């Protein structure tokens, strides 16, 4: 009897590629306690993974709707600033707000937009400072005495 023909190795990469392709296409799936499966969009899967990682790291996680409104105290906490500073920021017109009776309210989406803008501005400012200090030879300067090591 002739020996069995060896498997054609050349087809393997394609097979593996196809397998991985199928795996990737299947997307994230939620398994219920009784074996029920529920497929979900990639973005929802990523969101859940991030949520679980946050909870496992012991962080508290808040899910807030974009249309939700915040009090000035809540908005200040989300930005990591004092309430007085937040109120000044509102009065300078940097974040849109409206009034409910005499109380100021801020939409979550406006607050997040302000925070993104602020963070981008800070990042650019730090980049510029670092570039300038590198160019002037300050960045790697060694302290001249031991006092501040």
């Amino acid at each position, binding site marked *: 009897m002739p020996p069995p023909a060896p498997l054609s190795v050349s087809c393997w990469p394609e097979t593996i590629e196809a397998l991985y392709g199928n795996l990737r296409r299947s997307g994230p799936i939620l398994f219920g306690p009784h074996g029920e499966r529920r497929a979900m969009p990639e973005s929802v899967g990523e969101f859940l993974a991030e949520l679980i990682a946050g909870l496992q790291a012991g962080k508290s996680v808040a899910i807030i709707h974009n249309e939700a409104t915040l009090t000035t105290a809540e908005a200040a906490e989300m930005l*990591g*600033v*004092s309430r007085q*500073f937040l109120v000044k920021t509102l009065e300078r017109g940097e974040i849109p707000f409206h009034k409910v009776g005499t109380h100021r309210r801020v939409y979550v989406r406006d607050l997040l937009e302000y*925070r*993104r803008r602020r*963070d981008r501005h*800070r*990042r650019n*400012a*730090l980049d510029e*400072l*670092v570039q*300038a*200090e590198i160019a*002037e030879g*300050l*960045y*790697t*300067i060694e*302290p*001249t*005495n031991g006092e*501040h*090591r």
Partner: protein
Amino acid sequence: MLDACVLAPMPLCDTLLRLAEEPAFYIPKWSDSILSEVARTISKFGYSETQVARRMRFMRDASPKQ
């Protein structure tokens, strides 16, 4: 709270402030008196007056607002 000894040397200051960028690892804090000490220290490092002023401008802008 970040003290002057970690805010004065720029490689440390740079690294610590990058860690505070979103997604933030922590929220940095410092006071005006810490900033004055940073100014004194970096001028001892050999920073010119303009170079000290530029660093202070940046730090004030990035300051935690209390």
